[in-house]
Protein backbone atom coordinates (compact mmCIF):
# COMPACT_ATOMS: atom_id res chain seq x y z
CA UNK A 1 0.00 0.00 0.00
CA UNK A 2 2.92 2.33 0.76
CA UNK A 3 4.27 1.78 -2.76
CA UNK A 4 0.87 2.57 -4.17
CA UNK A 5 0.70 5.86 -2.33
CA UNK A 6 4.22 6.71 -3.41
CA UNK A 7 3.20 6.14 -7.00
CA UNK A 8 0.04 8.22 -6.53
CA UNK A 9 1.94 10.99 -4.78
CA UNK A 10 4.61 11.20 -7.47
CA UNK A 11 2.02 11.15 -10.22
CA UNK A 12 0.05 13.88 -8.48
CA UNK A 13 3.20 15.92 -7.90
CA UNK A 14 4.09 15.62 -11.57
CA UNK A 15 0.62 16.68 -12.69
CA UNK A 16 0.61 19.57 -10.21
CA UNK A 17 4.05 20.73 -11.34
CA UNK A 18 2.97 20.71 -14.99
CA UNK A 19 -0.34 22.44 -14.29
CA UNK A 20 1.28 25.10 -12.10
CA UNK A 21 3.87 25.94 -14.76
CA UNK A 22 1.24 25.87 -17.51
CA UNK A 23 -0.91 28.26 -15.48
CA UNK A 24 1.98 30.73 -15.29
CA UNK A 25 1.72 31.29 -19.06
CA UNK A 26 -1.98 30.92 -19.83
CA UNK A 27 -3.54 33.76 -17.79
CA UNK A 28 -1.11 36.33 -19.14
CA UNK A 29 -2.02 35.30 -22.68
CA UNK A 30 -5.71 35.69 -21.81
CA UNK A 31 -5.25 39.09 -20.17
CA UNK A 32 -2.67 40.64 -22.49
CA UNK A 33 -4.68 39.51 -25.53
CA UNK A 34 -7.63 41.64 -24.43
CA UNK A 35 -5.42 44.60 -23.46
CA UNK A 36 -3.62 44.56 -26.81
CA UNK A 37 -7.01 44.35 -28.54
CA UNK A 38 -8.23 47.45 -26.70
CA UNK A 39 -5.03 49.35 -27.49
CA UNK A 40 -5.25 48.52 -31.17
CA UNK A 41 -8.93 49.53 -31.17
CA UNK A 42 -7.87 52.95 -29.85
CA UNK A 43 -5.27 53.16 -32.62
CA UNK A 44 -7.87 52.13 -35.21
CA UNK A 45 -10.33 54.76 -34.00
CA UNK A 46 -7.91 57.65 -33.43
CA UNK A 47 -5.31 56.95 -36.12
CA UNK A 48 -2.70 58.15 -33.58
CA UNK A 49 0.59 56.41 -34.50
CA UNK A 50 1.69 56.51 -30.86
CA UNK A 51 -1.06 54.00 -30.08
CA UNK A 52 0.26 51.78 -32.84
CA UNK A 53 3.66 51.88 -31.12
CA UNK A 54 2.05 51.04 -27.78
CA UNK A 55 0.08 48.18 -29.34
CA UNK A 56 3.15 46.71 -31.03
CA UNK A 57 5.18 46.96 -27.83
CA UNK A 58 2.70 44.98 -25.72
CA UNK A 59 2.08 42.63 -28.63
CA UNK A 60 5.77 41.71 -28.51
CA UNK A 61 5.53 40.76 -24.83
CA UNK A 62 2.31 38.87 -25.63
CA UNK A 63 4.25 37.00 -28.33
CA UNK A 64 7.08 36.08 -25.95
CA UNK A 65 4.64 34.69 -23.41
CA UNK A 66 2.61 32.88 -26.06
CA UNK A 67 5.66 31.30 -27.68
CA UNK A 68 7.12 30.03 -24.42
CA UNK A 69 3.81 28.85 -23.01
CA UNK A 70 2.26 27.27 -26.08
CA UNK A 71 1.94 23.47 -25.94
CA UNK A 72 3.03 23.19 -22.30
CA UNK A 73 -0.52 21.99 -21.62
CA UNK A 74 -0.13 19.06 -24.01
CA UNK A 75 2.06 17.35 -21.41
CA UNK A 76 -0.96 17.09 -19.14
CA UNK A 77 -2.63 15.04 -21.86
CA UNK A 78 0.46 12.80 -22.15
CA UNK A 79 0.20 12.16 -18.44
CA UNK A 80 -3.42 11.05 -18.69
CA UNK A 81 -2.44 8.15 -20.96
CA UNK A 82 0.65 7.14 -19.02
CA UNK A 83 0.12 7.88 -15.35
CA UNK A 84 -3.66 7.93 -15.18
CA UNK A 85 -4.76 5.21 -17.59
CA UNK A 86 -7.69 3.96 -15.47
CA UNK A 87 -9.01 7.50 -15.29
CA UNK A 88 -8.26 8.19 -18.93
CA UNK A 89 -10.21 5.13 -20.04
CA UNK A 90 -13.02 5.67 -17.52
CA UNK A 91 -13.76 9.23 -18.74
CA UNK A 92 -12.37 9.01 -22.28
CA UNK A 93 -15.48 9.94 -24.21
CA UNK A 94 -16.40 12.86 -22.00
CA UNK A 95 -12.93 14.27 -21.62
CA UNK A 96 -11.98 13.55 -25.21
CA UNK A 97 -14.69 15.68 -26.84
CA UNK A 98 -13.93 19.04 -25.17
CA UNK A 99 -10.17 18.51 -25.51
CA UNK A 100 -10.49 17.61 -29.20
CA UNK A 101 -12.57 20.74 -29.82
CA UNK A 102 -9.98 22.74 -27.88
CA UNK A 103 -7.17 21.38 -30.05
CA UNK A 104 -8.95 22.18 -33.31
CA UNK A 105 -10.09 25.63 -32.17
CA UNK A 106 -6.68 26.51 -30.81
CA UNK A 107 -4.95 25.43 -33.99
CA UNK A 108 -7.23 27.09 -36.50
CA UNK A 109 -8.13 30.29 -34.67
CA UNK A 110 -4.93 31.11 -32.88
CA UNK A 111 -2.50 29.81 -35.51
CA UNK A 112 -4.26 31.69 -38.30
CA UNK A 113 -4.96 35.01 -36.67
CA UNK A 114 -1.82 35.26 -34.58
CA UNK A 115 0.17 35.20 -37.84
CA UNK A 116 -1.86 38.11 -39.22
CA UNK A 117 -1.46 39.87 -35.88
CA UNK A 118 2.34 39.73 -36.07
CA UNK A 119 3.05 39.67 -39.81
CA UNK A 120 0.11 41.67 -41.09
CA UNK A 121 1.04 45.24 -40.17
CA UNK A 122 0.96 47.26 -43.44
CA UNK A 123 0.04 44.11 -45.39
CA UNK A 124 -3.63 43.75 -44.55
CA UNK A 125 -6.18 46.49 -43.92
CA UNK A 126 -6.28 48.11 -40.50
CA UNK A 127 -9.74 46.71 -39.95
CA UNK A 128 -8.72 43.14 -40.79
CA UNK A 129 -5.64 43.44 -38.60
CA UNK A 130 -7.74 44.65 -35.69
CA UNK A 131 -10.20 41.81 -36.24
CA UNK A 132 -7.28 39.33 -36.21
CA UNK A 133 -5.97 40.71 -32.94
CA UNK A 134 -9.37 40.35 -31.30
CA UNK A 135 -9.90 36.89 -32.79
CA UNK A 136 -6.55 35.79 -31.34
CA UNK A 137 -7.66 37.00 -27.91
CA UNK A 138 -11.10 35.42 -28.28
CA UNK A 139 -9.55 32.19 -29.61
CA UNK A 140 -7.37 31.93 -26.50
CA UNK A 141 -10.43 32.33 -24.29
CA UNK A 142 -12.39 29.74 -26.27
CA UNK A 143 -9.48 27.31 -25.91
CA UNK A 144 -9.63 27.89 -22.17
CA UNK A 145 -13.39 27.23 -22.24
CA UNK A 146 -13.01 23.61 -23.36
CA UNK A 147 -10.27 22.84 -20.85
CA UNK A 148 -12.37 24.35 -18.09
CA UNK A 149 -15.47 22.43 -19.21
CA UNK A 150 -13.46 19.21 -18.90
CA UNK A 151 -12.14 20.23 -15.50
CA UNK A 152 -15.61 21.25 -14.30
CA UNK A 153 -17.00 17.87 -15.23
CA UNK A 154 -14.48 16.31 -12.85
CA UNK A 155 -15.77 18.57 -10.08
CA UNK A 156 -19.44 18.05 -10.99
CA UNK A 157 -19.94 15.02 -13.24
CA UNK A 158 -23.14 15.58 -15.26
CA UNK A 159 -24.36 14.79 -18.76
CA UNK A 160 -23.05 11.21 -18.79
CA UNK A 161 -24.07 7.60 -18.31
CA UNK A 162 -21.72 4.86 -17.13
CA UNK A 163 -21.47 1.89 -19.49
CA UNK A 164 -20.43 -1.19 -17.45
CA UNK A 165 -19.60 -3.19 -20.59
CA UNK A 166 -16.82 -0.82 -21.62
CA UNK A 167 -16.10 0.69 -18.17
CA UNK A 168 -16.49 4.13 -19.71
CA UNK A 169 -18.65 7.11 -18.98
CA UNK A 170 -20.47 8.06 -22.14
CA UNK A 171 -21.65 11.60 -22.77
CA UNK A 172 -25.42 11.73 -23.19
CA UNK A 173 -26.01 15.47 -22.85
CA UNK A 174 -23.32 17.71 -24.32
CA UNK A 175 -25.07 20.91 -23.23
CA UNK A 176 -25.46 19.72 -19.64
CA UNK A 177 -21.69 19.33 -19.66
CA UNK A 178 -20.92 22.68 -21.28
CA UNK A 179 -23.55 24.75 -19.51
CA UNK A 180 -23.25 23.20 -16.06
CA UNK A 181 -23.24 26.01 -13.49
CA UNK A 182 -19.81 24.85 -12.31
CA UNK A 183 -18.38 25.14 -15.85
CA UNK A 184 -19.96 28.55 -16.51
CA UNK A 185 -18.66 30.03 -13.25
CA UNK A 186 -15.26 28.43 -13.66
CA UNK A 187 -14.84 29.72 -17.21
CA UNK A 188 -15.64 33.34 -16.40
CA UNK A 189 -13.68 33.13 -13.14
CA UNK A 190 -10.53 31.81 -14.80
CA UNK A 191 -10.67 34.06 -17.87
CA UNK A 192 -11.34 37.22 -15.86
CA UNK A 193 -8.51 36.20 -13.51
CA UNK A 194 -6.35 36.36 -16.65
CA UNK A 195 -7.56 39.95 -17.18
CA UNK A 196 -6.54 40.77 -13.62
CA UNK A 197 -3.06 39.37 -14.20
CA UNK A 198 -2.80 41.15 -17.57
CA UNK A 199 -3.78 44.42 -15.88
CA UNK A 200 -1.27 43.94 -13.08
CA UNK A 201 1.47 43.07 -15.59
CA UNK A 202 0.84 46.14 -17.77
CA UNK A 203 0.49 48.52 -14.81
CA UNK A 204 3.62 47.08 -13.15
CA UNK A 205 5.87 47.37 -16.19
CA UNK A 206 4.52 50.80 -17.04
CA UNK A 207 5.21 51.87 -13.46
CA UNK A 208 8.82 50.76 -13.91
CA UNK A 209 9.11 53.02 -16.98
CA UNK A 210 7.74 55.95 -14.97
CA UNK A 211 10.28 55.23 -12.23
CA UNK A 212 13.04 55.31 -14.87
CA UNK A 213 11.45 58.38 -16.54
CA UNK A 214 11.27 56.50 -19.86
CA UNK A 215 8.48 55.80 -22.33
CA UNK A 216 6.26 58.28 -20.51
CA UNK A 217 3.41 58.40 -23.00
CA UNK A 218 3.34 54.62 -23.36
CA UNK A 219 3.50 54.14 -19.59
CA UNK A 220 0.77 56.63 -18.68
CA UNK A 221 -1.66 55.42 -21.33
CA UNK A 222 -0.91 51.74 -20.72
CA UNK A 223 -1.49 52.16 -16.99
CA UNK A 224 -5.01 53.42 -17.69
CA UNK A 225 -5.89 50.62 -20.10
CA UNK A 226 -4.28 48.00 -17.86
CA UNK A 227 -5.97 49.28 -14.71
CA UNK A 228 -9.42 49.43 -16.34
CA UNK A 229 -9.07 45.87 -17.65
CA UNK A 230 -7.69 44.76 -14.28
CA UNK A 231 -10.54 46.44 -12.41
CA UNK A 232 -13.17 44.93 -14.71
CA UNK A 233 -11.46 41.54 -14.31
CA UNK A 234 -11.38 41.86 -10.51
CA UNK A 235 -15.09 42.68 -10.34
CA UNK A 236 -15.99 39.74 -12.60
CA UNK A 237 -13.68 37.49 -10.58
CA UNK A 238 -15.46 38.56 -7.39
CA UNK A 239 -18.90 37.96 -8.89
CA UNK A 240 -18.04 34.57 -10.40
CA UNK A 241 -16.06 33.66 -7.29
CA UNK A 242 -19.25 34.12 -5.30
CA UNK A 243 -21.05 31.93 -7.84
CA UNK A 244 -18.31 29.32 -7.62
CA UNK A 245 -18.46 29.28 -3.82
CA UNK A 246 -22.21 28.73 -4.00
CA UNK A 247 -21.67 25.82 -6.38
CA UNK A 248 -18.93 24.39 -4.19
CA UNK A 249 -21.25 24.59 -1.17
CA UNK A 250 -23.85 22.55 -3.06
CA UNK A 251 -21.68 20.11 -4.97
CA UNK A 252 -18.45 19.82 -2.98
CA UNK A 253 -19.30 20.68 0.65
CA UNK A 254 -16.10 19.06 1.94
CA UNK A 255 -14.06 21.46 -0.17
CA UNK A 256 -15.91 24.44 1.27
CA UNK A 257 -15.43 23.13 4.81
CA UNK A 258 -11.68 22.84 4.17
CA UNK A 259 -11.54 26.31 2.54
CA UNK A 260 -13.02 27.78 5.72
CA UNK A 261 -11.53 25.35 8.25
CA UNK A 262 -14.97 24.38 9.59
CA UNK A 263 -15.31 21.12 11.49
CA UNK A 264 -18.71 21.65 13.09
CA UNK A 265 -21.07 23.72 10.97
CA UNK A 266 -23.97 25.79 12.24
CA UNK A 267 -26.92 27.78 10.99
CA UNK A 268 -25.78 31.38 10.50
CA UNK A 269 -22.21 30.21 9.86
CA UNK A 270 -19.53 32.88 10.18
CA UNK A 271 -16.91 33.48 7.52
CA UNK A 272 -13.29 33.52 8.62
CA UNK A 273 -11.83 36.72 7.17
CA UNK A 274 -8.43 35.83 8.61
CA UNK A 275 -7.34 32.95 10.74
CA UNK A 276 -4.48 30.84 12.00
CA UNK A 277 -5.43 27.17 12.11
CA UNK A 278 -4.72 25.07 15.16
CA UNK A 279 -2.19 22.51 13.84
CA UNK A 280 -3.38 19.95 16.42
CA UNK A 281 -6.96 20.03 15.24
CA UNK A 282 -8.21 16.76 13.70
CA UNK A 283 -11.74 15.73 12.85
CA UNK A 284 -11.79 13.22 15.72
CA UNK A 285 -10.57 15.42 18.58
CA UNK A 286 -12.04 18.34 20.49
CA UNK A 287 -9.22 20.84 19.95
CA UNK A 288 -10.13 24.39 18.93
CA UNK A 289 -10.25 24.96 15.17
CA UNK A 290 -8.26 28.20 15.25
CA UNK A 291 -5.46 29.69 17.33
CA UNK A 292 -6.59 33.10 16.15
CA UNK A 293 -9.39 34.18 13.87
CA UNK A 294 -11.34 37.20 12.69
CA UNK A 295 -14.86 35.98 11.89
CA UNK A 296 -17.64 37.85 10.09
CA UNK A 297 -20.99 36.67 11.50
CA UNK A 298 -23.42 34.82 9.19
CA UNK A 299 -21.52 35.73 6.04
CA UNK A 300 -20.63 32.18 5.01
CA UNK A 301 -24.28 31.11 5.34
CA UNK A 302 -25.31 34.02 3.13
CA UNK A 303 -22.66 33.20 0.52
CA UNK A 304 -23.17 29.43 0.58
CA UNK A 305 -26.96 29.17 0.97
CA UNK A 306 -28.20 32.72 0.16
CA UNK A 307 -29.85 32.70 3.61
CA UNK A 308 -28.49 34.38 6.75
CA UNK A 309 -29.44 31.36 8.88
CA UNK A 310 -28.71 28.66 6.31
CA UNK A 311 -26.85 25.61 7.56
CA UNK A 312 -23.29 25.10 6.29
CA UNK A 313 -21.93 21.64 7.14
CA UNK A 314 -18.44 21.26 8.57
CA UNK A 315 -16.06 18.36 8.06
CA UNK A 316 -17.54 16.34 10.96
CA UNK A 317 -21.10 17.00 9.77
CA UNK A 318 -20.25 15.69 6.31
CA UNK A 319 -18.67 12.57 7.81
CA UNK A 320 -21.59 12.01 10.20
CA UNK A 321 -24.36 12.94 7.72
CA UNK A 322 -27.94 13.52 8.85
CA UNK A 323 -28.35 17.12 7.69
CA UNK A 324 -30.50 18.34 4.80
CA UNK A 325 -28.56 18.26 1.53
CA UNK A 326 -29.20 18.17 -2.22
CA UNK A 327 -28.36 15.35 -4.60
CA UNK A 328 -26.98 15.74 -8.15
CA UNK A 329 -30.52 16.27 -9.47
CA UNK A 330 -31.03 19.17 -7.04
CA UNK A 331 -33.54 17.21 -4.93
CA UNK A 332 -33.50 17.70 -1.15
CA UNK A 333 -32.26 14.63 0.71
CA UNK A 334 -30.97 13.78 4.15
CA UNK A 335 -27.19 13.54 3.75
CA UNK A 336 -25.81 10.04 4.16
CA UNK A 337 -22.92 9.49 6.54
CA UNK A 338 -19.51 8.74 5.08
CA UNK A 339 -19.83 5.13 6.26
CA UNK A 340 -23.17 4.75 4.48
CA UNK A 341 -21.70 6.20 1.29
CA UNK A 342 -18.74 3.83 1.55
CA UNK A 343 -21.15 0.89 1.84
CA UNK A 344 -23.13 2.11 -1.18
CA UNK A 345 -19.86 2.49 -3.08
CA UNK A 346 -18.83 -1.08 -2.28
CA UNK A 347 -22.23 -2.27 -3.50
CA UNK A 348 -21.64 -0.40 -6.76
CA UNK A 349 -18.18 -1.92 -7.26
CA UNK A 350 -19.48 -5.40 -6.44
CA UNK A 351 -22.33 -4.85 -8.92
CA UNK A 352 -19.81 -3.91 -11.63
CA UNK A 353 -17.83 -7.10 -10.89
CA UNK A 354 -21.02 -9.19 -10.98
CA UNK A 355 -22.08 -7.54 -14.23
CA UNK A 356 -18.75 -8.38 -15.78
CA UNK A 357 -18.92 -12.01 -14.60
CA UNK A 358 -22.50 -12.32 -15.91
CA UNK A 359 -21.49 -10.76 -19.23
CA UNK A 360 -18.71 -13.28 -19.71
CA UNK A 361 -21.19 -16.08 -18.93
CA UNK A 362 -23.79 -14.55 -21.29
CA UNK A 363 -26.30 -14.52 -18.41
CA UNK A 364 -28.65 -11.69 -19.37
CA UNK A 365 -30.84 -11.97 -16.28
CA UNK A 366 -27.86 -11.66 -13.95
CA UNK A 367 -26.49 -8.79 -16.05
CA UNK A 368 -29.77 -6.87 -15.73
CA UNK A 369 -29.92 -7.48 -12.01
CA UNK A 370 -26.30 -6.34 -11.52
CA UNK A 371 -26.89 -3.32 -13.76
CA UNK A 372 -29.87 -2.27 -11.64
CA UNK A 373 -27.75 -2.51 -8.47
CA UNK A 374 -24.95 -0.56 -10.13
CA UNK A 375 -27.26 2.22 -11.33
CA UNK A 376 -28.87 2.50 -7.89
CA UNK A 377 -25.50 3.03 -6.21
CA UNK A 378 -23.36 4.57 -8.94
CA UNK A 379 -23.39 8.11 -7.54
CA UNK A 380 -21.33 6.75 -4.61
CA UNK A 381 -19.11 4.49 -6.74
CA UNK A 382 -15.86 6.15 -5.65
CA UNK A 383 -16.63 5.75 -1.95
CA UNK A 384 -16.19 2.02 -2.41
CA UNK A 385 -12.42 2.55 -2.60
CA UNK A 386 -12.24 4.52 0.62
CA UNK A 387 -10.82 2.56 3.57
CA UNK A 388 -11.26 5.15 6.32
CA UNK A 389 -13.24 8.38 6.61
CA UNK A 390 -10.01 10.32 7.11
CA UNK A 391 -9.24 9.73 3.43
CA UNK A 392 -12.27 11.87 2.57
CA UNK A 393 -10.79 15.00 4.14
CA UNK A 394 -8.53 17.16 1.96
CA UNK A 395 -5.38 18.75 3.36
CA UNK A 396 -7.14 21.47 5.37
CA UNK A 397 -4.20 23.87 6.03
CA UNK A 398 -3.13 23.85 2.38
CA UNK A 399 -6.63 24.55 1.12
CA UNK A 400 -7.51 27.05 3.88
CA UNK A 401 -4.38 29.19 3.50
CA UNK A 402 -4.43 29.06 -0.31
CA UNK A 403 -8.06 30.19 -0.30
CA UNK A 404 -7.41 33.04 2.12
CA UNK A 405 -4.29 34.17 0.24
CA UNK A 406 -6.40 34.30 -2.93
CA UNK A 407 -9.22 36.26 -1.25
CA UNK A 408 -6.92 38.73 0.52
CA UNK A 409 -4.93 39.38 -2.65
CA UNK A 410 -8.16 39.73 -4.65
CA UNK A 411 -9.31 42.44 -2.23
CA UNK A 412 -5.92 44.11 -2.49
CA UNK A 413 -6.07 44.12 -6.31
CA UNK A 414 -9.49 45.80 -6.22
CA UNK A 415 -8.15 48.65 -4.07
CA UNK A 416 -4.93 48.75 -6.09
CA UNK A 417 -6.66 49.24 -9.45
CA UNK A 418 -9.08 51.86 -8.06
CA UNK A 419 -6.21 53.81 -6.49
CA UNK A 420 -4.09 53.58 -9.63
CA UNK A 421 -6.96 54.81 -11.81
CA UNK A 422 -7.80 57.76 -9.55
CA UNK A 423 -4.18 58.88 -9.28
CA UNK A 424 -3.59 58.30 -12.97
CA UNK A 425 -6.45 60.57 -14.02
CA UNK A 426 -5.30 63.18 -11.47
CA UNK A 427 -1.83 62.99 -13.08
CA UNK A 428 -0.24 62.34 -9.68
CA UNK A 429 1.10 58.88 -10.35
CA UNK A 430 4.59 59.75 -11.72
CA UNK A 431 5.44 61.61 -8.49
CA UNK A 432 4.44 58.76 -6.16
CA UNK A 433 7.57 56.62 -6.36
CA UNK A 434 6.53 54.33 -3.52
CA UNK A 435 3.27 53.47 -5.29
CA UNK A 436 5.10 52.83 -8.54
CA UNK A 437 7.34 50.36 -6.73
CA UNK A 438 4.25 48.77 -5.17
CA UNK A 439 2.88 48.37 -8.69
CA UNK A 440 6.08 46.68 -9.86
CA UNK A 441 6.04 44.25 -6.92
CA UNK A 442 2.37 43.52 -7.42
CA UNK A 443 3.28 41.52 -10.54
CA UNK A 444 4.51 38.44 -8.59
CA UNK A 445 1.53 38.77 -6.25
CA UNK A 446 -0.73 38.39 -9.27
CA UNK A 447 0.86 35.05 -10.05
CA UNK A 448 0.69 33.94 -6.41
CA UNK A 449 -3.03 34.75 -6.33
CA UNK A 450 -3.83 32.86 -9.52
CA UNK A 451 -1.84 29.79 -8.52
CA UNK A 452 -3.48 29.83 -5.09
CA UNK A 453 -6.86 29.75 -6.84
CA UNK A 454 -5.98 26.58 -8.72
CA UNK A 455 -4.57 24.99 -5.59
CA UNK A 456 -7.90 25.59 -3.84
CA UNK A 457 -9.82 24.08 -6.76
CA UNK A 458 -7.63 21.00 -7.15
CA UNK A 459 -6.40 20.27 -3.62
CA UNK A 460 -9.81 21.08 -2.17
CA UNK A 461 -11.53 18.35 -4.17
CA UNK A 462 -9.21 15.60 -2.97
CA UNK A 463 -9.49 12.65 -2.58
CA UNK A 464 -11.58 12.85 -5.76
CA UNK A 465 -10.31 12.94 -9.29
CA UNK A 466 -14.00 12.72 -10.30
CA UNK A 467 -16.22 13.96 -7.52
CA UNK A 468 -17.69 10.98 -5.59
CA UNK A 469 -17.11 8.64 -8.56
CA UNK A 470 -13.37 8.00 -8.65
CA UNK A 471 -10.73 8.73 -6.00
CA UNK A 472 -7.33 9.82 -7.24
CA UNK A 473 -5.59 6.64 -6.13
CA UNK A 474 -8.01 4.46 -8.14
CA UNK A 475 -7.26 6.46 -11.30
CA UNK A 476 -3.61 5.53 -11.41
CA UNK A 477 -1.80 3.32 -13.96
CA UNK A 478 0.16 0.21 -13.17
CA UNK A 479 3.59 1.67 -13.76
CA UNK A 480 6.88 1.87 -11.92
CA UNK A 481 7.37 4.68 -9.42
CA UNK A 482 10.88 5.27 -10.76
CA UNK A 483 9.60 6.20 -14.22
CA UNK A 484 7.27 8.82 -12.76
CA UNK A 485 10.10 10.19 -10.61
CA UNK A 486 12.35 10.44 -13.67
CA UNK A 487 9.80 12.34 -15.71
CA UNK A 488 8.99 14.58 -12.76
CA UNK A 489 12.59 15.81 -12.66
CA UNK A 490 12.72 16.05 -16.47
CA UNK A 491 9.69 18.32 -16.39
CA UNK A 492 11.03 20.34 -13.51
CA UNK A 493 14.21 21.00 -15.54
CA UNK A 494 12.42 21.67 -18.83
CA UNK A 495 9.86 24.05 -17.38
CA UNK A 496 12.41 25.89 -15.29
CA UNK A 497 14.52 26.46 -18.41
CA UNK A 498 11.43 27.73 -20.25
CA UNK A 499 10.55 30.03 -17.39
CA UNK A 500 14.08 31.41 -17.21
CA UNK A 501 13.99 31.92 -20.99
CA UNK A 502 10.69 33.76 -20.75
CA UNK A 503 11.76 36.02 -17.91
CA UNK A 504 15.10 36.70 -19.61
CA UNK A 505 13.60 37.59 -22.99
CA UNK A 506 10.85 39.66 -21.38
CA UNK A 507 13.31 41.64 -19.27
CA UNK A 508 15.46 42.30 -22.33
CA UNK A 509 12.44 43.58 -24.26
CA UNK A 510 11.26 45.71 -21.36
CA UNK A 511 14.70 47.29 -20.97
CA UNK A 512 14.78 47.91 -24.70
CA UNK A 513 11.36 49.60 -24.65
CA UNK A 514 10.05 50.96 -27.96
CA UNK A 515 13.43 52.14 -29.27
CA UNK A 516 13.47 49.55 -32.05
CA UNK A 517 9.90 50.12 -33.12
Amino acid at each position, binding site marked *: MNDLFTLVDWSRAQFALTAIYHWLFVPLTLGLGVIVGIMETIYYRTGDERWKTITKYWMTLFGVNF*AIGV*ATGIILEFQF*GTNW*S*NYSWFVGDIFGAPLAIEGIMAFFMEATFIAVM*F*FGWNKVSKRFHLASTWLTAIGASISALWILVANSWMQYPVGMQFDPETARNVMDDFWALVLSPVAVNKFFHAVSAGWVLGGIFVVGISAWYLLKNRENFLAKQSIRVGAWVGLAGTLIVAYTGDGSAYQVAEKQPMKLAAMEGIYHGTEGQELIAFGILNPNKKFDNDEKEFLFDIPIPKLLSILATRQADGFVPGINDIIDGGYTDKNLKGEEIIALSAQEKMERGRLAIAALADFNTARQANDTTAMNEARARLDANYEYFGYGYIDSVEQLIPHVPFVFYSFHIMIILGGYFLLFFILILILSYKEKLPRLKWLLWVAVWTIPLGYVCLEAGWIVAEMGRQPWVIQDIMPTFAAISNIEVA*SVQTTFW*LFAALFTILLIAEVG*IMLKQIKKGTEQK
Partner: protein
Amino acid sequence: MEGNKAMKNAPVLLRIWRFYLEGFRGMTLGKTLWAIILIKLFILFFILKLFFFPDILQQRFDTDEERANAVIENLTNPNNSHQQQSQEP
Protein backbone atom coordinates in the same frame (compact mmCIF):
# COMPACT_ATOMS: atom_id res chain seq x y z
CA MET B 1 4.67 49.49 -55.94
CA GLU B 2 4.90 47.11 -58.84
CA GLY B 3 5.76 44.32 -56.42
CA ASN B 4 2.61 45.03 -54.45
CA LYS B 5 0.53 45.09 -57.62
CA ALA B 6 2.00 41.79 -58.77
CA MET B 7 1.32 40.35 -55.32
CA LYS B 8 -2.33 41.39 -55.48
CA ASN B 9 -2.76 39.65 -58.81
CA ALA B 10 -1.09 36.42 -57.63
CA PRO B 11 -3.18 33.34 -56.72
CA VAL B 12 -4.47 33.26 -53.14
CA LEU B 13 -2.27 30.35 -52.01
CA LEU B 14 0.82 32.05 -53.38
CA ARG B 15 -0.11 35.27 -51.60
CA ILE B 16 -0.57 33.39 -48.33
CA TRP B 17 2.79 31.65 -48.84
CA ARG B 18 4.53 34.98 -49.49
CA PHE B 19 2.75 36.57 -46.53
CA TYR B 20 4.19 33.96 -44.18
CA LEU B 21 7.59 33.89 -45.91
CA GLU B 22 8.06 37.63 -45.68
CA GLY B 23 6.74 37.60 -42.14
CA PHE B 24 9.28 35.00 -41.06
CA ARG B 25 12.10 36.73 -42.96
CA GLY B 26 11.32 40.05 -41.32
CA MET B 27 11.38 38.68 -37.79
CA THR B 28 14.03 39.72 -35.26
CA LEU B 29 12.99 38.55 -31.81
CA GLY B 30 10.57 36.15 -33.48
CA LYS B 31 13.43 33.99 -34.76
CA THR B 32 14.56 33.31 -31.20
CA LEU B 33 10.99 32.56 -30.18
CA TRP B 34 10.48 30.17 -33.09
CA ALA B 35 13.71 28.41 -32.18
CA ILE B 36 12.41 27.98 -28.63
CA ILE B 37 9.04 26.70 -29.90
CA LEU B 38 10.63 24.17 -32.26
CA ILE B 39 13.13 22.90 -29.69
CA LYS B 40 10.34 22.63 -27.15
CA LEU B 41 8.03 20.75 -29.53
CA PHE B 42 10.89 18.41 -30.45
CA ILE B 43 11.55 17.64 -26.79
CA LEU B 44 7.83 17.19 -26.08
CA PHE B 45 6.87 14.97 -29.00
CA PHE B 46 10.07 13.19 -30.03
CA ILE B 47 11.66 12.64 -26.65
CA LEU B 48 9.09 12.81 -23.87
CA LYS B 49 6.11 11.33 -25.74
CA LEU B 50 8.05 8.61 -27.52
CA PHE B 51 10.34 7.45 -24.74
CA PHE B 52 8.68 8.47 -21.49
CA PHE B 53 4.95 8.76 -22.08
CA PRO B 54 3.52 5.72 -23.84
CA ASP B 55 -0.23 5.23 -23.65
CA ILE B 56 -0.22 2.35 -21.18
CA LEU B 57 -3.47 0.72 -22.28
CA GLN B 58 -2.65 1.09 -25.98
CA GLN B 59 0.78 -0.39 -25.42
CA ARG B 60 -0.24 -3.37 -23.30
CA PHE B 61 -3.46 -4.44 -25.01
CA ASP B 62 -4.45 -4.95 -28.64
CA THR B 63 -8.19 -4.37 -28.60
CA ASP B 64 -10.62 -2.05 -26.86
CA GLU B 65 -12.32 -5.07 -25.33
CA GLU B 66 -9.07 -6.14 -23.67
CA ARG B 67 -8.51 -2.58 -22.45
CA ALA B 68 -12.03 -2.41 -21.04
CA ASN B 69 -11.56 -5.76 -19.28
CA ALA B 70 -8.24 -4.60 -17.81
CA VAL B 71 -9.78 -1.40 -16.46
CA ILE B 72 -12.79 -3.31 -15.07
CA GLU B 73 -10.33 -5.68 -13.37
CA ASN B 74 -8.44 -2.70 -11.92
CA LEU B 75 -11.65 -1.03 -10.77
CA THR B 76 -13.22 -4.10 -9.25
CA ASN B 77 -10.03 -5.52 -7.68
CA PRO B 78 -7.90 -2.45 -7.02
CA ASN B 79 -5.58 -4.14 -4.55
CA ASN B 80 -4.96 -7.12 -6.85
CA SER B 81 -4.13 -4.89 -9.76
CA HIS B 82 -1.54 -3.01 -7.78
CA GLN B 83 0.01 -6.21 -6.49
CA GLN B 84 0.24 -7.38 -10.11
CA GLN B 85 1.85 -4.11 -10.96
CA SER B 86 4.87 -4.71 -8.76
CA GLN B 87 5.32 -8.18 -10.32
CA GLU B 88 5.29 -6.87 -13.88
CA PRO B 89 8.66 -6.56 -15.61
